[in-house]
């Protein structure tokens, strides 16, 4: 509930409506009136109201019917039913249907003042709860930003520095490197941390949908736009807007966004009202934007407006010392989530993880550990639990000759059911040589 409280008074009696609107306005609230239920629902489709005073008896639409519509479509709005003397039974029914309270006309001044104060306090607590939940979630997710490597230590320092200023940031890095985590970390350490962090993947929407998703729309703006909807720009007011895959934004929308960044105002799709916004912008891309400018698919002016601070998020293959820490971190999380008593990762398995190239970066490592935990039979994750990494189509795992030999012998022994003579025949080596190799590589037959 940031800014002024928005209240709607719904009553067919003009004198009652005007009187209540006037009284509420004296407390500095933004108050509107509606002469009937249908008009009230129309207005609710156009904008949000924190509190609604709703008359029970109205000629065009019964107050209870309007209440049901409100509770079904706008549950975040609080409703006080207004009833005439003698219709308390209906008011009780309204309370059972979800009304927050009721008042009998004419109201005792003290009752009205206390009720409004109580409901606005409730609304404030609910809104604060929402923000806190968002904040806590943000902090938890930031824990995933793990690293002991020098390049990650540099990144952490950079995050602290960047969080203190309000300039736009462009995060560059390969897919899965954790650009969104970096954005969340910047937000959670900034002065905007108690306001929302609103992410949107620009590459996940077709052009028309992206426009409505970013800017919101008014009811009737296009087929299917039954009610007005806030866009991500509006939702991010006071907080941080994270535009992932910024390189996928069409040229026309780049102009629209540039205008928002410069003027801090915009219009919803199909709307005429100018909406003011204040947010910090963080963008991310895996593309080389200067090259995209040369190709004519990214605007130079938009790029310069965004690219005040650029942060490179390193790929996992360039910070291999982080792999054991990250693997352990993901193991602990998966263990908690699956409730499986996995104690740790065996050294050969960790060696495999450290040697793998991780084209999908941290995200791929996280998925690999989660998969291994789910399928693991023992109390430690073994090299076999990560065997799927060796079979990843088209991706070769760089291995030493020794490693290849060990794997090949193991594979043939398994194929031959650990019949040494048969396996030695296939491998075209003597039985003694095979025995030596088995001993050297510590290969053991599967437990029956």
């Amino acid at each position, binding site marked *: 509930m940031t800014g002024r409280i928005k209240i709607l008074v719904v009553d067919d009696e003009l*004198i009652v409506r005007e009187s209540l609107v006037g009284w509420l306005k004296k407390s500095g609230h933004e108050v509107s009136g509606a002469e009937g239920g249908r008009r009230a629902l129309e207005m609710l489709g156009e904008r949000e109201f924190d509190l609604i005073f709703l008359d029970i008896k109205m000629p065009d639409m019964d107050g209870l019917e309007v209440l049901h519509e409100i509770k079904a479509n706008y549950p975040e709005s609080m409703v006080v039913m207004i009833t005439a003397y003698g219709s308390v039974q209906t008011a009780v029914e309204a309370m059972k249907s979800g009304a927050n309270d009721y008042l009998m006309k004419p109201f005792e001044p003290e009752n009205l*003042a206390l009720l409004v104060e109580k409901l606005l306090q409730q609304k404030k607590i609910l809104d604060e709860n929402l923000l806190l939940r968002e904040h806590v979630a943000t902090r938890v997710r930031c824990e995933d930003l793990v690293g002991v490597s020098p390049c990650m230590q540099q990144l952490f320092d950079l995050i602290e520095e960047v969080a203190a200023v309000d300039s736009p940031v462009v995060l560059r890095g390969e897919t899965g490197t954790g650009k969104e985590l970096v954005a969340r970390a910047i937000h959670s350490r900034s002065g905007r941390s108690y306001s929302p962090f609103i992410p949107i993947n620009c590459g996940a929407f077709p052009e028309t949908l992206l426009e409505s998703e970013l800017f919101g729309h008014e009811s009737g703006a296009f087929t299917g736009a039954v009610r007005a909807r806030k866009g991500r720009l509006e939702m991010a007011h006071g907080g941080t807007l994270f535009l992932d895959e910024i390189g996928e934004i069409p040229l026309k929308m780049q102009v629209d966004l540039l205008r928002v960044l410069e003027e801090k105002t915009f219009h919803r799709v199909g709307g005429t009202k100018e909406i003011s916004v204040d947010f910090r912008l963080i963008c991310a891309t895996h593309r080389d934007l200067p090259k995209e400018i040369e190709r004519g698919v990214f605007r130079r002016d938009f790029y310069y407006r965004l690219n005040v601070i650029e942060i490179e998020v390193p790929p996992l293959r360039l910070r291999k010392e982080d792999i054991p820490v990250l693997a352990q971190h993901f193991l602990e999380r998966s263990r908690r989530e699956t409730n499986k008593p996995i104690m740790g990762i065996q050294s050969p398995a960790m060696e495999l993880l450290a040697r793998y190239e991780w084209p999908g970066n941290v995200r791929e490592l996280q998925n690999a550990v989660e998969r291994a935990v789910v399928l693991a039979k023992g109390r430690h994750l073994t090299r076999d639990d990560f065997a799927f990494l060796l079979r990843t189509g088209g991706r070769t795992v760089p291995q030493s000759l020794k490693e290849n030999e060990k794997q090949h012998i193991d594979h043939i022994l398994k194929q031959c059911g650990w019949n040494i003579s048969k396996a030695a025949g296939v491998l075209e080596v003597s039985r003694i040589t095979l025995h030596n190799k088995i001993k050297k590589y510590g290969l053991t037959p599967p437990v029956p």
Partner: protein
Amino acid sequence: MKKGIPRTLPPLGLIEMGRLGEVAVRVVAANLQGVLGIPVDLLQPMDIPTESFQEHRKQHDAGLILKHLASRSFPNHLGVLALTTVDLCSPILTYVYGEAEVGGTTAVVSSHRLRSNEDGSIVSLGRYYERLAKVSLHEVAHILSMFHCEKDDCLMHYCSKTHHLDRLGIAFCRRCEYVLKKNLALRCS
């Protein structure tokens, strides 16, 4: 409060509507001048408009009295405040001590419920005049575009009971005082 208020401010008209008594009117005028720093003109007394009487409630509709006042012309005044003895109500409230439109030009204050407490006990004249002055200052401040204030000792705090009124000082909180000064300066420009 007087400090910083421009001298070019037009006066506020004060009208006795019903027999309130000279002392009460002068106390209100003095407080308006003293606390708000605005000049006050005592205008000709006026009859209580008959159209404001609500037969079923045996009270006068404060909004209709404001309409009645607004139908008269007071071109040389910042606004007018009517002081009346009749019990006031509004279409939604069982009673009001006073009424004014935020940023409007008319206000009305009733003495009817201020002479006694809710339990019926009569209060001293001094307490009664103090209450009358507080409600008058509150309503005139609404004319000057002031909203209600959350601070429970500020004159702009909403009071629905006499003991709430008694808790207030005859002063605005620092924030309201600042806004009031700005609003008065705007009225002069």
